[in-house]
């Protein structure tokens, strides 16, 4: 691979740069302009992307400005309460019709020439359609076919327990097909701590910040890179900011439950998604110093355990995890969603939302909000150190010589463990194991090389990794062992 650089040979399919047999991935995919262009062209407009949370637009007319790959969009709610995703660009001369982050309006009027678009179904057939055109008679002799010139309407929207996803491609598979069995992680994210379905909302305020990193470092980090914690987060571990306070584990996990490592095999999906744990990894909510917190979470855990066991569902699967390609999240502590918006091969805008139970009492809400802020985002004591790594990994991979040498993704190569989940495997080890990243980049290459939907579907019909491993390896998964 070291001589097969795009500069020398012209850029072929990106799958040539992802060698799953040897576990080597070319640095080009993290820095190359042409590869970035292909991602924008072939991956992002065909993937299901997280756009925002329904609780950000609770009322008719509410909107939230978001981004899908290279394109700005508006997440809106119409007069009937339906959610829409509209391209935020005027059809006349392309002006961004809305430059606000959020607000409420039934009409977006372009400042340039005042074409106005309505999201009121009483005025237009489809919310987002062109409604007002200045000098309609003089300019267009009343012949402009307004129905054809509405804001571009994203054809596929799926609201999953309040999480709003969108996909530009009318041919794309349904959200359920795209997500597969990975939905259990989304359920844990969107359901309340006591298991009540979809009973969550986001705190107002999305952290947004720029980093000089390739967007895939971010996705990969949450996809199942539990290997980085000990080094990257050594300082925050030493200081101790978790629920249990100083001297406790980062997430305050109960010491008698195996803690943050044993049994925590990762889960990797053929569809590209990955999680840093598995459904059988049942670790109760953390220990809290405050009685109000202890009470709320003990009751929530018990209620959830009863509910899920009655449904024959295991209690694990709270992440961190990444929904292919760029939505990362965790359903634990903190409970949060991150989207890595690509700007260029070496620039990314990161957005972070924080999630809370709708019915959480004020004390719990406030405690969590403070914890989230000291943990995540650019001011967060944990996340600060991640950005340092992603930025300088990107920068130090730009060199001509550096680009000749691939990254190493060999942890647990060929040692995947089978899974009960559809088209999924588990890592051989709780901390080590890069099976998730290998699957992510395989799927990434398939999309970025613009394989057709039938081809993409065919390739992911079975998980060749799952059939390659012996089923008797299964008992290791999720088993709680004594902590070392």
């Amino acid at each position, binding site marked *: 691979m070291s001589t097969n650089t795009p500069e020398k040979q012209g850029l072929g399919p990106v799958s040539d740069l992802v060698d799953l047999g040897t576990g080597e991935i070319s640095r080009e995919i993290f820095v190359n302009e042409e590869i970035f262009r292909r991602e924008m062209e072939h991956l992002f407009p065909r993937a299901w992307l997280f756009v925002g949370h329904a609780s950000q637009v609770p009322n008719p007319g509410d909107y939230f400005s978001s981004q899908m790959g290279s394109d700005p969009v508006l997440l809106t709610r119409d007069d009937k309460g339906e959610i829409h995703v509209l391209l935020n660009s005027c059809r006349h001369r392309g002006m961004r019709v809305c430059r606000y982050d959020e*607000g409420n309006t039934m009409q977006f009027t372009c400042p340039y020439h005042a074409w106005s678009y309505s999201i009121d179904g009483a005025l237009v057939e489809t919310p987002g359609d062109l409604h007002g055109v200045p000098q309609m008679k003089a300019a267009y002799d009343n012949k402009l076919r307004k129905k054809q010139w509405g804001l571009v309407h994203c054809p596929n929207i799926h609201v999953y327990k309040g999480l709003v996803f969108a996909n530009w491609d009318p041919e794309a598979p349904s959200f359920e097909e795209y997500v597969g069995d990975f939905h259990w992680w989304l359920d844990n994210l969107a359901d309340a701590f006591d298991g009540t379905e979809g009973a969550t909302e986001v*705190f107002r*305020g999305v952290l947004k*910040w720029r980093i*000089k990193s390739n967007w895939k470092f971010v996705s990969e980090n949450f996809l199942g890179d539990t290997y980085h914690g000990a080094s990257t987060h050594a300082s*925050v571990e030493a200081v101790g900011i978790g629920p249990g306070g100083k001297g406790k584990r980062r997430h305050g996990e109960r010491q008698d439950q195996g803690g943050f490592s044993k049994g925590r095999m990762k889960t990797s999906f053929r569809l590209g998604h990955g999680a840093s744990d598995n459904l059988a990894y049942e670790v109760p909510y953390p220990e809290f110093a405050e009685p109000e917190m202890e009470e709320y979470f003990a009751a929530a855990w018990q209620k959830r355990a009863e509910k899920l066991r009655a449904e024959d569902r295991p209690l694990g699967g709270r992440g961190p995890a990444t929904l292919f390609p760029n939505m990362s999240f965790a359903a634990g502590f903190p409970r949060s969603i991150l989207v890595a918006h690509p700007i260029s091969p070496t620039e990314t805008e990161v957005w972070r939302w924080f999630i809370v139970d709708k019915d959480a009492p004020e004390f719990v809400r406030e405690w969590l909000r403070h914890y989230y802020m000291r943990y995540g985002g650019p001011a967060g004591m944990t996340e*600060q150190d991640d950005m*340092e790594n992603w*930025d*300088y990994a990107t920068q130090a991979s730009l060199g001509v010589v550096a680009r000749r040498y691939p990254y190493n993704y060999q942890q647990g190569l060929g040692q995947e463990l089978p899974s009960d989940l559809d088209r999924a495997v588990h890592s051989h080890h709780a901390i080590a194991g890069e099976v998730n990243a290998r699957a992510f980049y395989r799927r990434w290459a398939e999309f970025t090389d613009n394989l057709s939907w039938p081809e993409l579907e065919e390739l992911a019909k079975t998980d060749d990794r799952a059939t390659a491993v012996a089923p008797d390896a299964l008992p290791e998964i999720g088993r709680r062992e004594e902590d070392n």
Partner: protein
Amino acid sequence: MAIDEKLIEKVLLEREVADFLYREADLLDERRYDEWLDLLADDYHYSVPLRLNVRYDDVAERENTRACEVQWFDEDKSTVELRVAQLATGVHWAEEPVSRVSHLVTNVRLDRVELPEVEVSCRFLVYRNRVADETDFLVGRRRDTLRRTEDGWRVVKRHLLLDQSVLMAKNLSIFV
């Protein structure tokens, strides 16, 4: 012309407060964090809301996130102490190697005097440079509540309005 005692008193107080703020900035920029922590009152509270792009008629309601919403910072002294401890670990990679920081504090004005407390508004420009070409400018308004004690002034409350919506710096690992 009669001497305006009240005015002189105010000017002297303003000068005293400004001196305190400049000295505090020096402690931060010289990385004398333990001495800096001593200047924060035990009931210190620090908040930096997010700034949103909103319509002119939404500004009052929506421009800055509120105390019950997500902010860049919303914390008391105990969290600030944890941040100082994190810097001292030597493995806080966001600040290894350490940043070069200059806090410029200007437009200092006494907004309220109810001794022993005063409310001071100012502008800040925090310049950070680290490694080779990493350079950030954090600029905005600040409102401090200071308390005069036997041991000198203490910062009780600090509320910052950072003039950025999307943070252009990759992190906020320095004390702004």
